[in-house]
């Protein structure tokens, strides 16, 4: 099996929920495939707003853990902390020797398709990982 570890980029958007379904479907092929689900905790800097962002990210990570608990494969949830989602995801994939990145085409970053620009950057700059992009409107 070419794929031993999948990195799932998840931010609670409709597209990333579809990405979760795709990642689980791929992992069904072999119960030894590990799913590493990563949510980006963006560090904005000083202020009480950062407290709130952290709490929301922790709540999303808890929810993600509950969803992945149903999956028979080994799973792990990670909060990637930094500024640039594309760089954080690519570093995470490299550090964990992932074979496949699954992510949504649009995320919660912004009206101009912030995660659209992230998925584009990941596809362009991924060196050893295949990248599977889930669309928001797909029937997964």
């Amino acid at each position, binding site marked *: 099996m070419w794929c031993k570890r999948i990195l799932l980029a998840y931010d609670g958007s*409709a597209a990333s929920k579809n990405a979760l379904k795709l990642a689980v479907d791929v992992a069904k092929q072999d119960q030894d495939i590990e799913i590493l689900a990563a949510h980006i905790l963006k560090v904005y800097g*000083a*202020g009480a*707003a950062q407290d709130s962002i952290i709490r929301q990210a922790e709540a999303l990570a808890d929810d993600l853990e509950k969803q992945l608990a149903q999956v028979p494969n080994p799973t792990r949830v990670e909060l990637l*902390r930094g500024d640039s989602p594309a760089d954080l995801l690519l570093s995470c994939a490299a550090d964990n020797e992932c074979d496949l990145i699954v992510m949504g085409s649009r995320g*919660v*970053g912004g*009206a101009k398709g912030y995660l659209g620009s992230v998925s584009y950057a990941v596809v362009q700059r991924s060196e050893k990982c295949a990248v599977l992009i889930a669309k928001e*409107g797909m029937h997964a």
Partner: protein
Amino acid sequence: MAQTDAQTKPKPKLWTRDFIIGAGINFLIMANYFALMVITADYAMEEYGAPASFAGLVASIFIVGALIARLVGGGILDSIGRRRMLVIAVVAECVMSALYFLDLGLAFLFVIRILHGISYGAASIAVSTIVTSIIPEECKGEGVGYFMLSNTLGTAIGPFMGMAISQAVGIRGLFAVCLAIAFICLASLLWFKPPREERKPFSGGAAHLRDFIEPTAIPIGIVACLVFFGYASILTFLSSYAEQVGIQTAASFFFVAYAITMFISRLFTGKIFDRRGANVVMIPAFVLAIVGMAAVGLAFNGAILLLGAALLGAGIGTLQSCGLTIALQKASVRRISLANSTYYVLMDGGVGLGPVLLGAFVPLVGYSGVYLAMAGLIGIAMVFYLVVIAKGQVKTKRA
């Protein structure tokens, strides 16, 4: 072809009335805080003859009040109710802003400053939590970015306002403006009607020190403490220093220049940090901060002062945000909130303690001497970073 849900779903709106009002309140309370912060020490020395160290304490005790509010307020926010806490805090802001007019002595001013800090801290945490929770998921990043811009604008416009207005119409004119700002915040709450959140009962206090502090955040927190010790000397004594050197006009634009370079640097330092590791941004940031602080200490004209401001904005701004990233990255997933609060306690501790201790040195070495010493202190912080933290921050090349 049948339209998909994605095509028929209406686009979520970021710029709602509540978002605009919330960001506006955040900006105004920050501007109020910084406007008073930059003139309080000067006011205490001139009006009440306070020695520089106590004048510094009167200014910086505000930060201690804000810190208390953040530590306690975060835990009780959802049991009291977010909007309720905001209303109470803004009413308190109005009362505190009015009390500055009363000439009842230095001890009274000291008490007002603590209470004002508490009301500011409570208002800040309440409005930040409300606004970040009402931003639609689809534009969370953009929305939070704009909200944080209200912080940056507050830190730039507040000190400018404080110095410009107090120079133009005197300190009581500034008190009047700050009171008006507080009332504008109060009035705007009439139109601020965010959705009610689910209330949670208060779960009780923590039993162990480990429930308050995240040990992995302490080393980088110490770096932040030392750097902001130096920053606080500028926040508290810049007005008096500028008057001494005769560069008041340039000084009123200090924090504008500071905020501009801080904002610009944040556009790219985060990406470099994520791509190439912390040391690539932290070490140049330390150098910029050291040179900037030295420029402030040696400023004999407005241009050099503003050059110092620009260098400090880029340097300290980068150290603050990247330092926080280091603190959060070192913590395990379940302890990120604690790492965040540990970092802030140490950073705000530096801001709070700095003016008190440094004020004692002002009569000995002058303001210029203090700023040059702070350049040295940031150098010590850099050495500490290199010895204790830098080794763990080297980014391995991607395979």
